[in-house]
Structure formats: structure tokens, C-alpha cells
């Protein structure tokens, strides 16, 4: 197995946040006797990432995802622990390190809004010291992959959100970084544009073997791009493994959808013999059963031999429902 490109050990970040009650008198008191509260944003996180791997970092708002990315990109000094990315300690912010990584944020722009993207790209290519011929080649490739020829000469402020995101991705990849931190890259985009960007990221990752950590609130992003997910909750890493494994662990049941040639007279009565089966309200003629994984073969066999079945399908519960459950309960 290849050496990890990212190694994180006991990473911890505690913010000191000023605290005061609302109102004028409280703010005057705060002037003389400021009160602070320590907030643990990230606590004792450990993981490694292999070169070329694409990992989803998920968790509810305020879980510590962005703080983790900010420490790995060198923006924040941690309170404790260590990290090595591409052999460098991120918060030393060495130019050689910054040249190897890229951070693309869905809610923050790296572009100058007054001028066309092409001009911003050229400045970035000089800042990152990309040789002219390599710059041209990379730019052509990215422009083709993202299908954005038409946007290059308009000032950035006149572009739509989706078009701007394409520009942000080009800006982030122009210098061919080894590591890409993507913070909510599809934030606010319509479904078609989200899909487009996902296809692009997948293609780009396959062609260039860039290592990616992706945070997103859209499970579709994560399930389309990342085989592995890390789940953060209240600053702690509570799961690190395959997305499917997470789903299996959390949702030890499957959904069986049934359609009948003639409506069965006593379906619910028939089902009482299987204690692990839960009958869910039917949806437009489909009957849905929630069945424990281990019981699925037995129950479906019984149903098929005893009831007038026209169609039967076995499905996993939607990932959104699974994730929602963890966010609510705070544990895996």
C-alpha cells in the first residue's frame, strides 16, 4: 500500500470565544471584564489518506469539518496534535507546501470580480509559478472538461453562481495540486450543475490522481464521489470507513417493495408471522415492507409462494435518511 499523503494525529482546535449577554449594559460590562468561553471545534482527530483517494468529510453544521480543512490548508494553527500533508506541516505555510495544495470553497471566491476570469487565471499562474506551456495545456484541458469557453471573457461579477463555481475549480486546479480540499463545492447550485461538477471531479481525479477531501451537505455528492467517508460530530471523528458500511451499520434493514396482481385480502394478517417485518403505508399501489437484513430471503420466499406477486424489489434505505438519523442521535 502506498505511503499516506495526509496523516493527522490527535488534531485539536479550541477557539476562545468572547461571550456576553445581549443589550447595551452587558456590552459596557464586557468592556471592563470580558468573559471568554473555550469552544472545542475539533477534538483529537486521527486519520490517514492515500494518494489519489477521494474522501468525504461529513457532519452537521458546526461539526468541525471546515475547521479541520482550514488547519490542513495552513490557515489555522491547531491547539494540539500534528498533521503532515505531502511531507509538510501545513501551518508552517511554506511556499513549497502551498504550491502543492488547493482549497476551493463554495462560499468564498478566489477570483477578482471586476475582470474576466482569464485575467485572474493568468495572475494565479504567475503566483504559482506555472510554466507558460504547462499553463496553456492545463487551462485548455480544464476549459474543455468544464465546457466553459463562453465564460472566459465576461467579468466574473456577471457570471451565474454555477459558472462562477466552474471558474473557482479552474483557479484551484491550474497549478495541478497534489491535494485538493473542497469545501461545499456544490453549495447553492441547481441539480443539473451539481451533477456536472460531480462528473468533472470524478474524471479529473481519475486522470490526475489528485487526493481529495470533500465536505458537502448533499449526500448525492458524497455517494457519487467518495467510497470512503469520515463522519465528524461535535468535533469528534465518529466514523471512518466505506459509505456502504456506514449505511449497513446504521440501517440494518432493507426496504422490500411489492406489487400484486390482485390486492391480497389480509396482507397485514399474513405478515404478523414475521416479527421483524414492519409494514409501511403503501405508496401509489406499492406496498413497502421494512425487513431486518437477515430475514429478507426467508420473508421474500414466503411472500412469493403465498401471495399473488406481480413485482418485487429489494432496496437500501435512502442515504439521506441514514445520515439524518446520525445527526439527530449523535452516534454511530
Amino acid at each position, binding site marked *: 500500500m502506498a505511503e499516506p499523503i495526509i496523516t493527522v494525529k490527535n488534531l485539536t482546535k479550541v*477557539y476562545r470565544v468572547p461571550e456576553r449577554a445581549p443589550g447595551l449594559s452587558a456590552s459596557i460590562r464586557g468592556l471592563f471584564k470580558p468573559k471568554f468561553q473555550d469552544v472545542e471545534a475539533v477534538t483529537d482527530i486521527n486519520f490517514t489518506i492515500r494518494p489519489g483517494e477521494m474522501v468525504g468529510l461529513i457532519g452537521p453544521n458546526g461539526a468541525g469539518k*471546515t475547521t479541520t480543512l*482550514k488547519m490542513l*490548508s*495552513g*490557515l*489555522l*494553527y491547531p491547539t494540539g496534535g500534528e498533521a503532515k500533508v505531502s511531507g509538510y506541516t501545513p501551518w508552517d*505555510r511554506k*511556499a*513549497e*507546501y*502551498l*504550491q502543492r*495544495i488547493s*482549497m476551493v*470553497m463554495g*462560499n*468564498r*471566491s*478566489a477570483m*477578482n470580480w*471586476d*475582470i474576466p476570469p482569464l*485575467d*485572474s487565471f*493568468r*495572475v494565479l499562474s*504567475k*503566483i*504559482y*509559478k506555472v510554466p507558460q506551456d504547462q499553463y496553456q495545456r492545463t487551462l485548455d484541458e480544464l476549459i474543455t472538461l468544464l465546457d466553459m469557453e463562453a465564460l472566459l471573457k465576461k467579468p466574473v461579477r456577471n457570471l451565474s453562481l454555477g459558472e462562477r463555481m466552474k471558474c473557482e475549480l479552474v483557479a484551484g486546479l491550474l497549478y495541478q495540486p497534489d491535494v485538493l480540499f473542497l*469545501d461545499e463545492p456544490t453549495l447553492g447550485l441547481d441539480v443539473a450543475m451539481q451533477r456536472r461538477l460531480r462528473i468533472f471531479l470524478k474524471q479529473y481525479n481519475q486522470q490526475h490522481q489528485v487526493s481529495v477531501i470533500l465536505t458537502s451537505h448533499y449526500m448525492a455528492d458524497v455517494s457519487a464521489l467518495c467510497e470512503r467517508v469520515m463522519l465528524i460530530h461535535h468535533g469528534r471523528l465518529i466514523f471512518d470507513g466505506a459509505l456502504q458500511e456506514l449505511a449497513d451499520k446504521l440501517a440494518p434493514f432493507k426496504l422490500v417493495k411489492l406489487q400484486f396482481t390482485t390486492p391480497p385480502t389480509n396482507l397485514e394478517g399474513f405478515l404478523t408471522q414475521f416479527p421483524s417485518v414492519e409494514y409501511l403505508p403503501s405508496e401509489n399501489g406499492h406496498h413497502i415492507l421494512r425487513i431486518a437484513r437477515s430475514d429478507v430471503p426467508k420473508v421474500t420466499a414466503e411472500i412469493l409462494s403465498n401471495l399473488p406477486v406481480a413485482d418485487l424489489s429489494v432496496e437500501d434505505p435512502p442515504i439521506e435518511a441514514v445520515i439524518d438519523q446520525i445527526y439527530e442521535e449523535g452516534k454511530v
Partner: protein
Amino acid sequence: MNHQGGWELIKNTWQSWLQHRGFFFLLAFGWMLPLLVYLMIWSAAASEGSLAGLSQDALAGYYLVLVLVNQLTYATTNWTVGDNIRMGQISRWLIQPMSPLYHALSSEIAGKVVFMLFSIPVTAFLALIFRPQFNLSWQQSLLFIPSILLAWALRFFWGYWLALLAFWATRADSLLALQDTMIFLLGGHLAPIRLLPNWMQSLAKILPFRYMSAFPVEILTGFLDKNESLTGLLIQLGWTSTAYLLYRLVWTRGVRHYEAVGG
């Protein structure tokens, strides 16, 4: 050091600023106005001969050069530094392999070019009206060059380290307003330094503010003899180095303290 990237950034910033040239021209006009008012007041006061040895023509020369020097040394950029830190905008510069100082320098240099596009023709026109008088020696013009470069560097780095205090205090830019007031009083705006009361003159010669604006003007308009000019340059160099060191100190500590808000 990343000069190539810095230079590309300057060209780009210039391009984007030229898009808003109307705004910058108005700004330049606004800065010019108070100085012209003081010129007229002091000219009126000197109408019966001279004031502390300054004739009307000499005062006109002083204030017209000051208009240009003031705009060349005024560090507009510093007003945005605090906002960039407070709103977390500086994040995107911190992750680039180039010192964020280049971003400040690029808007400084770009800004100067845009302001001069307006101010030089306007000042030339005013010179036709006020008929300033200069007794220029080549030595003076030679000393003027380092003095104006240092004046810019001093005014810029002094404001920059004050603005960087935004890493700790969210409204550090009020200190910039204080700097402007000190320059107004002790930097030769309200009156040429030699018209001030003695105690203010002594203060002006020790504190950094005169060296941010009036000092190069005094050299060019022949207000100072050779000794005064050289001593002044030494003091100016001392303050500039201090300002630079303070910037380095505040910067290295500030970045560690930075909380990268937003996003």
C-alpha cells in the same frame, strides 16, 4: 519572494481599478480640496509681503507639491486591510505561495497610477493660476527622490501595522483615522511646519508624521538647507525601519492568532 506573481497582480489590480476610475478621481479631488483651502488662507495672510519668510509664490509652490506628495504617499490600501481580516477575506491570500503583503502593495501601486492620471493634469492647471515659485538646485531634486520613497514606505508600513491590529481588535482602523489627524496637524497640512508654534515644530521634527508627508516637499521647495535635509533623512530612515519591524512583528503574531472566520 515572488516578484513575478506580484508584478502580474499589480497589472491586474490596475486594470480592475481603472474600471472604477470615476470613483478614484473623485476621491483624489476630495483629498486635494482641503490643501487648496489652506493654500488660499495662508496666501491671504501673506498678501502684504511674506509670512515667516514665505512669500505667496513660495506658499503656492509648497501646497501644490504637497497635493501631489500627499496623494503619492497616502496608503488607501490600509483602510481595507482590517475589513479583509475581520471578514476572513485574507484567507484566500494566506493559502497562496506569496506573501499577502504583495496584495497590499499591488493596490498601492495601482492606486498611485490611477490617482496621478487625475492629479498631475489638475495640479499643472492650478500652477497656471497660482504661479508658484521654485528655487531648485540639483542637490535638492536628488535628495527629494529618497525622501519621497521613504515617506511613502513610512506612511504605508505605519498604517499597515496599525491596520493589522485587526487580528486582535475588530475595529483597529480607528487608529488610521488618528494617524491622518496627526499628519494633518504635524505633517505640514494645516500649515507649513515653520509657521507652527515652536513647541509644535519641535514635536513635528521628532515624531514620524512630518516624515510621511511634508518632509519631501520641504526639501523640493528649498525650505531646508543641506544639513537639515540630511538629518531629516536619517530620522526618516529610522522611523521607516521601525515601522517595518513593527509590521513584521505584528504580522507573524497576528497570523498565529488568526481565526479564519466564515466559510
